[in-house]
């Protein structure tokens, strides 16, 4: 137990500090009415918070990727740059969606190109399929975070990434599990920040960086470890569970019931994801 607590503290404390510092800078910029800078700093909080944890978990932060996981911080920074571009006033919605799709496909392709046992046409097929899913998830979460400017969303995402961490550990990758744990720490920091600053949300470009990272970690888990595809899809869907509150039947419910329903769906999808990972890989023998 002490081993896991020590590991979790060593992994989560530096990302927590990096995220808090950048969120404070974003808050400062927001109060000075520098909205574009504020959005960029909020998105940077996810990217740099994750990069800090990534450096600790993998022991490296390379500009030229060698092993597949080296791509993850670069994907985060690419999404960060796109979020900066998207926040410019004159970017129309179709252009924004097109750019997201291009970056999503390119991101997945970057992760699949090093794979030795898959042909190029297969890699391209997977990259287009998963890239389209990533773009949809990105847009879905971005829209959701514009609607739900409350602490529940980052809390829900933090819990989902924590459960994803378990699924990845069962799928024989402690390192990818730790990287998902780093996202938990970053989103947990957002949750605490949102409790303090009630009108704060992750909508300020941060959702794109988060989605790219979660997707990248799970795609690595599917193709380089033993994470079942269905487990990954359920985790991705769990991040969008907040949309249930916009469904017609849900609008008649009280706010608390809506929140309970969102949490229930989120947890159920994530739990099913772990269940499928256990079904495929079996429970870890432990201590090997």
């Amino acid at each position, binding site marked *: 137990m002490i081993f896991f607590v020590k590991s979790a503290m060593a992994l989560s404390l530096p990302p927590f500090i990096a995220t808090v510092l950048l969120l404070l800078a974003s808050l400062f910029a927001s109060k000075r009415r520098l909205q574009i800078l504020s959005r960029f700093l909020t998105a940077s909080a996810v990217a740099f918070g994750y990069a800090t944890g990534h450096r600790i978990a993998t022991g490296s932060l390379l500009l030229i990727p060698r092993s597949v996981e080296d791509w993850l911080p670069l994907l985060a920074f690419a999404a960060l740059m796109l979020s900066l571009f998207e926040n410019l006033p004159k970017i129309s919605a179709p252009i924004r969606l097109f750019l997201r799709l291009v970056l999503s496909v390119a991101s997945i392709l970057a992760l699949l190109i090093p794979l030795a046992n898959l042909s190029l046409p297969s890699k391209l097929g997977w990259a287009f399929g998963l890239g389209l899913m990533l773009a949809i998830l990105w847009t879905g979460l971005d829209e959701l975070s514009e609607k739900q400017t409350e602490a529940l969303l980052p809390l829900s995402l933090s819990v989902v990434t924590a459960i994803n961490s378990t699924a990845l550990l069962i799928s024989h990758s402690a390192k990818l599990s730790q990287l998902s744990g780093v996202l938990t720490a970053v989103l947990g920091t957002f949750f605490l920040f949102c409790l303090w600053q009630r009108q704060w949300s992750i909508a300020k470009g941060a959702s794109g960086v988060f989605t790219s990272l979660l997707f990248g970690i799970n795609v690595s888990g599917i193709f*380089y470890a033993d994470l079942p595809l269905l487990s990954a899809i359920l985790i991705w869907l769990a991040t969008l569970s907040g949309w249930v509150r916009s469904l017609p039947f849900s609008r008649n419910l009280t706010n608390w019931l809506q929140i309970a329903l969102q949490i229930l769906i989120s947890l159920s999808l994530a739990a099913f994801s772990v269940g499928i990972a256990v079904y495929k*890989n079996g429970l870890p023998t432990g201590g090997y």
Partner: protein
Amino acid sequence: MHKPISLRTVFSVLAFIVGFAISADTYEVDPAHSFVIFRCLNVAQASSVFIYGRFTDIKGRIVIDKDLAKSSVEITINAESLDTGVPDRDKHLKSPDFLNTKQFPVITFKSKKVESAGKNRYRVTGDLTLHGVTRTVTLTVAKVGEGKNFKGVPVIGFETTFTIKRSDFGMKGLMNVAADEVTLTIAIMGIRK
């Protein structure tokens, strides 16, 4: 007009080629009698035990020349063939946490220089490629024996043990689970072609 090549020159060249062919023996690594074994301290178990494992799929070629400088060795190991006796551990070691065999399916060693290091001992310098990183290593190799096997085919066997740091080969994560230092023993037997 070119001067015709003399018979003497032709014979000299032929003698050189035949002499070279005779002086160099090529051996194919026999997977059934070759072993690549590794040992690594399990830090997660309070550093109280070494984990041992092996790679079961080994290929390669050994060229033995009278002129030692012309001798060479090439070994290719299928990283997917890793076996520690615990399937879950094997999958973990093959995942991106360590070897990442889906991206780096082979481990290779290619000699660049072979020197004598005493009777039946050699200093072999070469490139070890592991986890996509190539580093030059110098190994002290002992000749275990040579002769004709029970089928009358010439065979030769070598063995070496050396230690690498996995972090030198880009495997820098999870140092609180497995130690940085990994000791490898390569024992190969070649069958003359």
